[in-house]
């Protein structure tokens, strides 16, 4: 269960990254939230067999990671953590979708393989963008930005608490399952039957603990409003950031830039 603990501490590091200083960190959170939203929408809106036109979108995470000074390997590892789930979703595509789309000599590539690859690329882009958003902004600031953009306060607070609850839950899981492991002497313990009550206890314990944390927050004057230390306003640089990226994403979505480039190249070198 050490692995769960390590994974959680690793995840907490994302919030710590948001503390550093860079031109990207200094931007108002709303600009970053909006740009991320436009980015994700453009990436997701492509057809299921689209692959080549997605690739230019990698410029966004690359530029953001470079400008914000985020550790690229760390982000890649976080994305890799998600990829098994994506694989599970798309694994049956090659089985069911056998329409041949491309023929390279004897090798026929079916639509299923293309859509699986497209799914992987899209998940990498969107999940990566979300991680970059939190790593350059901090979760509290993201929630605050959502609220200032017009999401009802209740939802924003819920989101913030959900994020905190992950850590509470992981803490309790690691200590409970360690206790179970130690008393099952390297065997399976009572097997599945013991898991039922373990999960039940976990729910109750995390509930109580979450309540204690909430009490501590109330005791320090929390009334459901967010405050972040970074004071920022939506100024000229935010506007440039927002417009620049939005125009690029819309252009990449509307025009087949990689295709045009390819044509240009093949035109020059026939």
């Amino acid at each position, binding site marked *: 269960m050490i692995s769960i603990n390590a994974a959680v501490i690793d995840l907490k590091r994302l919030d710590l990254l948001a503390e550093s200083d860079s031109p990207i960190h200094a931007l108002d959170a709303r600009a970053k939230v909006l740009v991320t939203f436009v980015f994700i929408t453009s990436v997701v809106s492509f057809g299921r067999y689209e692959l080549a036109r997605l690739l230019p979108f990698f410029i966004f995470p690359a530029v953001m990671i470079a400008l914000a000074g985020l550790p690229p390997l760390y982000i890649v590892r976080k994305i890799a953590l998600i990829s098994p789930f994506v694989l599970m979703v798309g694994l049956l595509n090659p089985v069911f979708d056998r329409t041949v789309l491309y023929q390279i000599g004897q090798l026929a590539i079916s639509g299923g393989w293309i859509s699986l690859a497209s799914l992987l690329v899209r998940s990498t882009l969107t999940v990566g963008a979300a991680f970059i958003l939190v790593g350059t902004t901090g979760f509290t600031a993201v929630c605050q930005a959502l609220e200032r953009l017009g999401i009802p306060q209740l939802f924003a607070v819920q989101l913030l608490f959900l994020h905190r609850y992950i850590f509470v839950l992981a803490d309790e899981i690691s200590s409970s399952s360690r206790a179970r492991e130690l008393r099952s002497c390297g065997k399976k313990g009572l097997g599945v039957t013991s898991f039922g009550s373990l999960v039940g206890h976990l729910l109750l314990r995390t509930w109580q603990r979450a309540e204690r944390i909430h*009490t501590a927050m109330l005791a320090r*004057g929390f009334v459901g409003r967010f405050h972040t230390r970074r004071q920022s306003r939506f100024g000229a640089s935010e506007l440039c950031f927002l417009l620049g990226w939005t125009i690029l994403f819309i252009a990449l979505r509307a025009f087949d830039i990689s295709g045009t480039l390819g044509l240009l190249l093949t035109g020059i070198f026939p």
Partner: protein
Amino acid sequence: MSHHIVEAKNLQHVYPDGTIAIKDVSFRITHGESVAIIGANGAGKSTLLQHLNGCLIATAGEIWIGDTLLTKSTLPDIRRTVGMVFQYPDDQLFMPTVFEDVAFGPLNQGLSGEEIDRRVTEALERVGAGHLRAKPPYHLSGGEKKRVAIATVLAMSSDILVMDEPTSGLDPFARRQLMYLLQEFQHTKIFTSHDLDMVLDLCGRTIILHEGAIMADGPTDEIFRNEALLTACRLEKPFSMQGCPLCNRSSRHKKT
């Protein structure tokens, strides 16, 4: 008018399952007093403490902080006046870094910019934790966590300091350091503790709770000399008042 007075009038708390946790508790703690609330496990200490800043609402009775009655509308004001340090610092430290954690209270009070910086730095320096400001709370040791938890309350400049088991889980050195620190504070202080030696050192007045009711309220040294009362409330004299452990042991051996 003083904000530093805490008064409970006929306080009663019944939990939803029917357990009577506190019955008819009344006391008045005045400016600058340092008071210990002691009692066996389950005597109602923590429940009583949680009433002082409205974390729990009394079934009957009143809490007064200075001239303010604790009600729903006065709650924000009272929570600013009464700073509460919880027993488990892990429940109290929930932000990504120590700095942000200490800044949480002042930010909620509506402060900003340099004032926040000043308050946080002052509070951390006060508890000797200035060097921990950039660290994440879960990487701290028990003693450091406790000190940061106290700083989170100091930063709110509360007038009254309420602490649940301040010395529990600390090593002897960290415990002594914490006691020196608490001794310096000019606040009105209210502690619950099983560490009766700390109570003897820090608190001039002691209130004994037993099964939810006040059994005694008076000067600490008088109460600790009353062995019959302590035994009736499932308590013992502080170790420092129990005489030499070696002599005691040899006399016990002789008896058996």
